[in-house]
């Protein structure tokens, strides 16, 4: 029987723990494909966050470290300083990276730490049951913004990619999405480019991937993809925010 689709090498056989319709699975696949495509899976160490992807250490088929909440860039820094020739990446959600771990994120970027961050932005805290995230859109209803995010009290969402792009240590920052097949393909190229930047010792690379949370958004998977496209992308424009990789391309 002809194989028409298979799980990429680079992921273990552990069943993914994500909700039906959640795009974490797609993003895991893109990361694994990029690492295997570059032939570096056997020298890669990943850092799992706290959040929905806390169990990422079970899914990526490489050595993994599970980090305290938000500290993944600091943990990755420690790893990378011991093994500068290995590939070190973190996989973080928006609460982990853009709220409790903002300092670690910004300073790893400012140092030009030669690591890659896969930043999954789904505008909500998933694992804890759908609370407001730093990236929750104005007016968006969550468990802790039951009347919609009121920016007069809850403040504004953070555009991480744009913010980090202002830092000299950042070699590559791009925002992509996974709401349809062309977007997924572009996201895959961005992830691969980020890892290539690390292999070329260019410095800090980050790919922000807009993602869905059907469970906590209260939408079915298809509606979620549409919501991402209609609501998130206007607030979080896709594209390359910074590129010093010298690899060219990358524009969407």
């Amino acid at each position: 029987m002809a194989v028409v689709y298979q799980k990429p090498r680079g992921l273990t056989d552990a069943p993914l723990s994500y909700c039906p319709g959640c795009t974490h699975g797609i993003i895991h696949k893109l990361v694994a494909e990029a690492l295997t495509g570059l032939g570096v899976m056997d020298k890669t160490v990943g850092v799992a966050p706290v959040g929905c992807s806390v169990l990422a250490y079970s899914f990526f088929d490489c050595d993994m470290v599970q980090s305290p909440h938000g500290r993944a860039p600091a943990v990755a820094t420690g790893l990378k300083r011991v093994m500068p020739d290995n590939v070190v990446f973190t996989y973080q959600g928006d609460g982990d990276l853009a709220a409790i771990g903002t300092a670690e994120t910004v300073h790893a970027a400012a140092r030009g730490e030669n690591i890659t961050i896969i930043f999954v932005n789904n505008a909500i805290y998933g694992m804890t049951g759908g609370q407001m995230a730093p990236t929750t859109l104005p007016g968006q209803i969550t468990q802790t913004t039951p009347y919609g995010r009121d920016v007069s009290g809850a403040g504004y969402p953070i555009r991480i990619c744009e913010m980090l792009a202002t830092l000299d240590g950042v070699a590559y920052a791009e925002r992509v999405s996974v709401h349809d097949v062309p977007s997924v393909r572009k996201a895959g190229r961005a992830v691969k480019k980020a890892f290539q930047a690390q292999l070329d010792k260019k410095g800090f690379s980050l790919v922000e991937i807009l993602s869905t949370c059907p469970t906590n958004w209260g939408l079915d998977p298809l509606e979620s993809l549409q919501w991402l496209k209609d609501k998130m992308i206007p607030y979080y424009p896709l594209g390359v925010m910074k590129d010093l990789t010298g690899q060219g391309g990358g524009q969407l």
Partner: protein
Amino acid sequence: MGERFLMKGNEALAEAAVLAGCRHFFCYPITPQNEVCAYMSRRMPKAGGTFLQAESEIAAINMVLGASAAGARAMTSSSSPGISLKTEGISYLAGSDLPCVILNIQRGGPGLGGIQPSQADYFQATRAPGHGDLRILVFSPATVQEMVDTVFDAFDLAERYRMPAMILADGLLGQMMEPVEFPAVDVTPSPKPWAVGANDGSRPRNVINSLYLQADVLEQRIRERFERYRQVEQSHSRCEEYLTGDAEILTVAYGASARVVRTAVNDARDKGIKAGMLRPLTLWPFPQEQLRAAAARAGAVLTVEMSMGQMVEDVRLYTGGSVPVHFFGRTGGVVPTPAEVLEQIERLNAEGGNG
């Protein structure tokens, strides 16, 4: 005997860490431990190591976590308020069975407190260095030479038992200079089969993790860890006994306050009072057997600390009411004087030891 150098405790300890094979040091500035960072920033590049000034104590301890996960001998240093920030990371290190060395050059607290020497972090170090069921090794040097010697033990035991080790010193030991000798070694740490790194598939995946969502699995992991702690307790508690053989008044003190007490004990002996001192060199594991034995010979115990009384609770715990336990302390950064301690010893002596 090698050359004796005149060095500050902070700098001597930093040099010793390098000789002990530490090549990854992460810190954040805080008084009175700044000389450790400054020394490392000069020394590490020459030793081919990493010195990194982190954005916070939180980041620094997590960099230690990452470096340790990769199998390196990693260290961070701070002082009391900064150690509070590190407790999160210490808990994760303990829960992930990772070794490391944490230096606390204690200053007065709570809050911002002060910057003068203190021993008010005893509870934090020995009871709650982080959340959860855990222990860490706690060493308590009292001289600059011991600051050096302790670093080697701290790294060795931390690695052997895969647990964090803290060196609990204070501003006085960090800032003072004393003659010090360094062992003629440059330790090459042994490879760690559990460390993360490149893997061509010839071994199972290594995962450094503290998360166990199934309660019974977590319980099992903790029980295994506590079995290691039990071995540590059985084999590695250490203390110095000074004139305890015939001591009727047994003082108990560690670190800088033990220096003060030693002088007071000498002065008491000069006055014909049979005083002695038991000085824990490890606060966890606490030298409980040695304390019980020495206390059994004495009529009274006097614990002296630069706090409102923290170790004294362990002294009472481990003597189990067999002997009256008294306390004298100064706090907030005030260092007790030998005269003050002598006065306490004399008072107990006059009261027949059990006042």
